[in-house]
Structure formats: C-alpha cells, structure tokens
C-alpha cells in the first residue's frame, strides 16, 4: 500500500505542519521564485569547468526517469502479457466465456460465471459484515474514545492489516470454520432459512465462511482510510453542531459523517478492490466447487481461487488461456474499482488546507 507510510506519518505528526511541508516542497523548484536552480541545470549557460558535472546531472536525471518508466513498463507488460496469453480462450469462446456456467476442463468447456458469481457474492457479503465494523472503529477512534486508547486501537487495526492472507486462511480452517459451523450457522439456519440464503447442508467450507474471513481482512483497510477522511472534517463543523445543542451522536451524524460521506464510500470501494482479489484465505475456506447455489452455506469458488488452485495442474493451452482470461477480468475489475475509490477519497481529502482558513 503506497498510502501506508504517509498515513503512519500523519497519524503521529501534527497534521497541519506536515501538510505545509508538502505544499512547500512542491512548488518552488524550477518556478520563477528560484531562478538560480534552473541556471545550474541549464548546460549551455554554465562555465566550462562544470560541464562534466552537468552531464552527470543529466545522466542522474535520466537514470531516475528510467526507474519511473519502469513502473509504466511493468503495468504495460502486465496488460500485454494477460491479453496475449488469454487470446486463445477469447477467440474460442468470445464474450460467452463470462456467462457460461459450465467449467469442465476434461471436455474442454470453459465458462467463468461460477467464479465471477462467487467473487461478487463473497465480496458483497464481506462488505456487509465489514463496513459497519470498520466505520464504527473509525468513528470511535476519531470522535469518541478517550485519548490514551486512541493509539493502541489504531495500532491493533494496523496489525490486523499486516497479517498475511495465508495465516488468516490457516486460522479460518482451524478456528473460524468450526466456530461458524457449531455456533453461528445453526442460529442463522434457525431464523433465516426462510430467505433461502442459509439452508442445510452446512459443511462449514462455504461462501459465507469465505465472506467472513474477507471481512476481517478488509476492516483495517476501510477503517484506516475512513479515519483519515474523518480527521479532515473541519473542527468548526463539529463545534457548530455542538453549539446548536446537538448531542455527540447527532454531531457525528450531521457534521462529521455527512461531510465525510464520499470519502467513506471511497474507503469502502477500496476495501472492495482488496476483497475481489483476495486469494489464499478464500481458497482455503470457500470449498472450491464451481457451482451457483442460492444458499450461502454451500461451497463455491472465486476467480482468484480458481487460478491459484488449477493453474499449475492445468493441462493444455486452452485451459491455461481460460485461467489467464479470468486473471485479465480480475485485473480490469480491480483497476476500475481502485480508480473509482481513489477519486472518491481524493474528493474529500483534497480540501485539507481549507482548515487553516477557519
């Protein structure tokens, strides 16, 4: 996560001073404010004895540009590679590939719908579980909790984010799945079986288990970005609401959450992006069965999981090509989701300096 260090920095630094550093750092170089710098970098105006140094300057600049180009190159390579290696499946099945629900490698019939369905449903259910938790943590930490508790709670959620996916999977297999099967699912079946979403048989390895693991994994992401967004809401908005006689919750609802709405939605979408691509923990508990069942307690499959499980054993070019096409679809969807999320978070946090005009 590129945002991580800056978030950590802003967590402990006083935010305003940091922000001014950033904005100072951005402008002056090369603009009219400091003409002496552009003099140095312009080779033709420099005295002869500095020429060799200036060539080093150009060389250094090119080297750094090369590194920046490498970032573009890698993404270009990813796209080219995925497009090229999935072309066989694309030519064979066309757009039907994404809507066919028959996945039978032996007979050479590939339809990706069960995986797309599994990814969408597990991510959606995960969001339903994670969003209230994450927003509650963010609101509690920024608005309610006593100061000494603030750091430990945010540190704990950050640690949750640092645990690798495969360890969540391990924990889910031996702790979460038995817990759900023995205590939670029977209750869900008892009270919610009329919806058709929670019906027996219940093996434990299911879409629902996968969704719960994903939820635990995306809570820290959503809550830390929400926290950032909430921190940006101008203090005078809070004071104004309190001065009008609002209770603390009314103040949070009207002055804080309403202002931060777009940013929180952005954080949720960012969590969705992570949920869609989640691989290991999902593979370990979702049951790995390419089927579409209405019950969430039935086993399912996801796009990332099928690649992880079947790619190495895939025999034949068409099989591999089909799996890579699933990877391409996953890539496109996550990129779109992340761009959307970035725009929404930015739409809230970009106005930060406004706070100084109070």
């Amino acid at each position: 996560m590129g945002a991580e260090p800056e978030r950590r920095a802003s967590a402990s630094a006083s935010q305003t001073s940091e922000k001014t550093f950033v904005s100072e750092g951005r402008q002056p170089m090369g603009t009219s404010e400091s003409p002496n710098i552009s003099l140095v970098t312009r080779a033709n105006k420099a005295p002869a004895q500095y020429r060799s140094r200036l060539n080093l300057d150009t060389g250094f600049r090119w080297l750094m540009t090369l590194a920046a180009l490498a970032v573009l190159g890698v993404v270009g390579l990813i796209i080219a590679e995925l497009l090229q290696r999935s072309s066989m499946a694309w030519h064979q099945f066309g757009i039907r590939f994404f809507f066919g629900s028959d996945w039978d490698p032996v007979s050479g019939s590939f339809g990706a719908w069960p995986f797309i369905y599994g990814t969408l449903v597990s991510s959606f259910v995960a969001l339903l579980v994670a969003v209230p938790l994450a927003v509650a943590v963010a609101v509690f930490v920024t608005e309610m909790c006593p100061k000494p508790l603030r750091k430990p709670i945010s540190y704990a959620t950050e640690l949750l984010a640092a645990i690798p996916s495969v360890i969540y999977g391990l924990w889910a297999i031996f702790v979460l799945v038995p817990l759900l099967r023995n205590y939670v699912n029977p209750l869900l079946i008892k009270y919610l079986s009329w919806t058709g979403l929670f019906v027996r048989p219940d093996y434990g390895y299911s879409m629902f288990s996968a969704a719960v693991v994903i939820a635990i994994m995306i809570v820290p992401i959503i809550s830390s970005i929400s926290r950032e967004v909430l921190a940006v809401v101008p203090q005078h908005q809070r004071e104004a609401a309190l001065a009008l006689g609002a209770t603390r919750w009314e103040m949070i609802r009207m002055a804080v959450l309403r202002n931060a709405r777009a940013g929180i939605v952005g954080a949720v979408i960012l969590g969705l992006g992570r949920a869609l691509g989640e691989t290991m923990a999902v593979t370990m508990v979702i049951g790995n069965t390419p089927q579409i069942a209405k019950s969430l307690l039935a086993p399912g499959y996801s796009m990332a999981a099928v690649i992880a499980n079947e790619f190495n054993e895939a025999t034949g070019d068409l099989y591999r090509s089909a799996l890579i096409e699933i990877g391409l679809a996953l890539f496109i969807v996550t990129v779109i989701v992340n761009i959307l999320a970035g725009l929404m978070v930015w739409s809230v946090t970009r106005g930060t300096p406004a706070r100084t005009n109070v």
Partner: protein
Amino acid sequence: MSNHRISLRRQLTNYFFTGLAASLSVLVVGALLAIFTYLVLKGAGSLSWNFLTQVPKPVGEPGGGVANGIVGSIIILAIASAIGVPVGIGAGVYLAEYGRGRFGDVVRFTADTLNGVPSIVIGLVAYGLVVLPQGHFSGFSAGVALAIMMVPIVARATEQMLLLVPQSVREAAFGLGIPQWRTTISITLASARAGIITGVMLAFARVAGETAPLLLTALGYQYWNLSPSQPMAALPLQIFTYANSPFDEWHRQAWAAALMLVIVIVGTTTLVRFVFLRRMLEGAR
C-alpha cells in the same frame, strides 16, 4: 445547563450509538487478540531447534522442519529487494525531484494502480515473463513477482519522504555549488533516509507473507535447494500446503511456521512504527 432540554429519546440514541461503536471496536480488537493468542498457543509448542534446522520428513514420519522454506524465503525476498528497492527509490526520486508535470502524474497514477493489482495476477504475469521462457518454475521468478509488488510501495513512500525535506535544504546545497545529483544523493536522500527505510521495510513486510504469486512461480520444493534457477521452497507456501493437508503433524508445523512469519512481519512493522518513524519525524522538523 441545557442538558435538561435534551429529550430523553435523543440522549438514549446518543448512548446507544456510543455503546454500539465502542462494542464493535472491542470486537475488532478482540479478533486481533484471538488470532494472536491462538497463533502463539498453537505455534509456540511446535517451535523447536529441529523445526528450524531440518527439511520436511516424508508424510507419516514425525519430526522434520522448515529450514528449506526459511532459506528459500530469504533468497526470494533478497532477490525481490535487490530488484524492487532500487527501482522503487529511483521512481520515488523522480516523482519528488523532477515529476511535477503531466508525466509525473501519469507515473503516480500508474504506481497506485499497480499497487491495487491482485497478487495472483502478478503471479500470472511473472509466470508468463520468467517461468515460461526459462522452461521451469524458479525462485528467481518468485523474486521478480514480489519485486513488482514492492516497487509502487517503495516509490510512493520515497516520494512522500523526500517531499518532507524542506526546500531550503536543497537551495542551500545549490547555493554552495553542489550539482543536483550530488544534492539528491548526499543531502536530500540522506536526510530522508529513515523515512525511506520505513517505506522499504513496510514493502518488505507486505510481500514477505505473500503466497499466491509464489504458487505460480517458486512452486515449492521438498528438499534443499539454494539455486534460484530451480523450484524453491518458501515459508508461506509450506503453511498453505500443511494447512490443507490431513495430517496433524503438518498442522502443528503450519502453526509454528505461521508464528515465525508473523513474528518477522509484526516485528518489522513495529520496529518501523516505534523506531524509524519517530526518528524521521524528528528529522523533518
């Protein structure tokens, strides 16, 4: 004073939501504690000298360890860092020192995009770029996959930290006639050093536990292998295989390996948080 005038219903709503937020937060922190406690309880019992120094025994035989996975992970992460860190820092320097135009924005956007790409997709690409041309799975290809994941994290962190260095420091250097490349290396990068190390370590912690790309690149291996051009064992892969196996002995080893991995990752993150970050913020003031 005005408290009497707040209706009971409004006060109750206030208490209700405060309580709700507090209890949900407790639930999240509780989940973390539950995971850690379980990891320590299950893992600590199986950590032993043999576990750290032996290679896996065949199924059914007791004992054996994950030494090959530990060494494999170290080699793979070393390759990933050797490629990912210089490129990442270079791109970060570009963004902070030269990248104020449209091209800089494009690079920034691309780096953020790359950061959001699912790791399994990176694995697919590394498979196509390295494994296929090479003809077989290898530790090197795993290093490449993880390097790709490190670059955007390191680049954005480097950029952030360089921008924290006051502009006056650069101007002072230019004023002394120090060329720009020398200023960047010996002055700007040097003052932002702690922050950049932070970014690098966070990137390291992020990829150290990655499993999905390794499945398609390093593949895993039962015995000793120190050559990066061959299939290689790695700790996360062993956790995955052992967790999915039906053997109790392997389950115990999976917990022990998971505990080790978490100690490394959490250790890195905590070190960053309490040592480097503090020093860096002092430096920036």
